[in-house]
């Protein structure tokens, strides 16, 4: 069914399904909670809860656009959280990983991002130059990151972080949580990159048809590597935000977050067939799943059933995605 230039309600809904779904869900939830979910506090909570996942989903979303996948996301975020936390502990904390260490907050931030960068390079190298299937390559790096987390933290919690460091993620600018500002910056950057730069066009081209992309002169390996590197950088920063927000990190931090992020990107319309996906869609995907989590908690839905609902939504999203792609 081809839409003509004439605007129609059906065409609008069809084009912006994700956004319309989200808005309708907000309204329905607002009614079910008798306005409770519409208050500013609820929005702040939702935004804070989903910010870290948003970084993960943006990273893996770009990778999925290139027909890849990244299972290492959760563990890399976790490792970054542990490393950054270990450099931000209060100096007088006796159980600190490095007792007495007192560094300005920028050091743990850079270290955490560094962890993400290294894993991004590693994944990108394995996939682009080593020609490993992304699923397997990142399964390997996921396991390595999980092992490093345990070794680094001695399997204990890295807690008692300095207030200055905690403010990075816990602070507010007026009514807006800092976390939201970071996500907004990342979104803006990636949106410009994907929509208004040659590199963005190359990423879509690689995902759409890698052979054609190579023939048309795109350095597919190098570009693929760059996508994994960018994703890794996002994970690194996500890890920093997570430890800053929690005021701690342990070996379970970030566990299984890859599944949430992949689900959010998928629900947000990023196609696993490659070449299709928008930054706005990914964010809507994150918010949609976040709203479902939030709504079910608010309504007191039994936690066990929450998993069923989430699973059903992911399966339907992928099913519809496949039908669209076919």
């Amino acid at each position, binding site marked *: 069914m081809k839409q003509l230039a004439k605007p129609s309600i059906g065409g609008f*809904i*069809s084009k912006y*399904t994700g956004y319309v*779904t989200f808005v*309708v*869900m907000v309204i*329905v*939830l607002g009614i*079910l*909670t*008798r306005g*409770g979910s519409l*208050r500013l*506090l*609820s929005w702040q*909570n939702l935004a*804070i*809860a989903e910010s*870290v996942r948003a970084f993960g989903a943006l990273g893996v979303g770009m990778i999925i656009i290139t027909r890849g996948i990244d299972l290492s996301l959760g563990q890399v975020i976790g490792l970054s959280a542990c490393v950054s936390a270990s450099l931000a502990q209060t100096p007088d904390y006796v159980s600190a990983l490095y007792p007495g260490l007192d560094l300005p907050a920028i050091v743990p931030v850079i270290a955490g991002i560094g962890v993400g960068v290294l894993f991004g390079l590693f994944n990108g190298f394995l996939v682009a130059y080593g020609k490993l299937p992304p699923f397997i390559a990142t399964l390997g790096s996921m396991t390595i990151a999980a092992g490093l*987390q*345990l070794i680094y*933290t001695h*399997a*204990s*919690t890295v*807690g*008692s972080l300095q207030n200055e460091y905690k403010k990075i993620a816990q602070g507010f600018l007026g009514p807006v949580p800092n976390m939201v500002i970071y996500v907004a910056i990342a979104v803006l950057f990636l949106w410009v990159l994907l929509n208004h730069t040659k590199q963005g066009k190359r990423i879509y081209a690689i995902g759409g048809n890698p052979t054609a992309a190579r023939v048309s002169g795109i350095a597919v390996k190098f570009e693929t590597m760059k996508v994994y590197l960018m994703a890794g950088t996002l994970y690194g920063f996500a890890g920093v935000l*997570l430890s800053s*927000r*929690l*005021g*701690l990190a*342990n*070996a*379970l*931090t970030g*566990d*299984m977050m890859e599944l949430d992020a992949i689900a959010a990107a998928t629900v947000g319309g990023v196609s696993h067939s490659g070449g299709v996906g928008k930054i706005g869609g990914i964010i809507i995907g994150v918010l*949609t799943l976040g709203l*479902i*989590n*939030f*709504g*079910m*908690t*608010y*309504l*007191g*839905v*039994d*936690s*066990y*059933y929450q998993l069923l*609902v989430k699973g*059903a*939504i992911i399966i*339907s*999203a992928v099913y*519809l995605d496949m039908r*669209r792609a076919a």
Partner: protein
Amino acid sequence: MKKLMFVFLAVLLVAGAAFAGGQQDDGKTVIGALIRNTDEQFVADYADVLKGLAEEKGVELNLQDSRGDMALQLDQLNTLLSQGVKYFVVVSNTTEATGDIAKKIQAQGGGAAFSNIQPSVEALKVGPNFYLASSPESVAGEIQADILDKYFKAHPEKLANGDPDALDAIFLYGQLGHPAQTYRTNAVKQGLIDAGYKLNVVAEDTANWKPDEAQAKMDTWLAAFSGEFDVVIANNDGMALGAVESLLTAGYVDDPNDPSKDVDGDGIVLKVPVVGVDATQVAVKSMEEKKLYATVLQDAVGQATTAFELAYMMATEGSATGKKAWGLSPLSAPIDESPANDAAVAGQCYLVPFKAVTPDNYKDFMN
């Protein structure tokens, strides 16, 4: 594409309608329960007890399972607080997070009772309405050490395997980094050392709480270390039973011709004792068959009831300070273990006793 929207809406409406019923009862006492992970037997039992008590008292219980994710637990707390829930029962994911949890609840003028994972001293110092209703994990490890100390005192010849001067032990750990894994392990090791044993770790690895993984690990170790270890210590009963199965299958018993016979009179048919934690019904049954040697009961009913009663008193009477919960009085003087070691908050600590389950008393724990 509209189908996608339909699916979302249908799911949300069904979920909402099915559960929004409880929301309509205004004026009902509301208690929030933040539970770290019901995959674990103890926590699952704890949650079930809470649900039962809430029904009994006509309390609306909003129980949330964070599935081991501290960030999710914090989100759940924020959501419940934004709804006006003030009083909580908390099984946190980690001690280090309890301070922040308490501060958030205090900011709303509420209170909380912490179970299973100890709150920090800082968390209890946030206000008088924050309580410990728990048996610290490390005590489970200490009781394991105590049970083994008594076993080896009674049967010193059982120390002869491997290094005859040392207690040669094999350890099966839960998920690494999990608080129950860390605390139980450290405590049983320290307990054995404090009891005067030279501890020699023959082999140690995680089996992620799972019997099948434990069985596979034990199979490998039996091939490598047969005759070189005195004891198998597991962080939970599931893994202990996996090890027991492995030992039985390999014929690592007193009398391979009759594997149901306790030849040396140490109370078990296996050559070495295996100990766990939890006192699950399967484990107690295994003890009756003289396979598993001992386990430790972390009292889910006691902890959940104490915590619930504290939260209930706060919600209905404004405070629970100094009152009895589940028949327990708060501590009158500090003890050695954090957070009850700080005199300033000892009066907010309700210690639910752990129980050693041994061949002498296991019958009391059979349902």
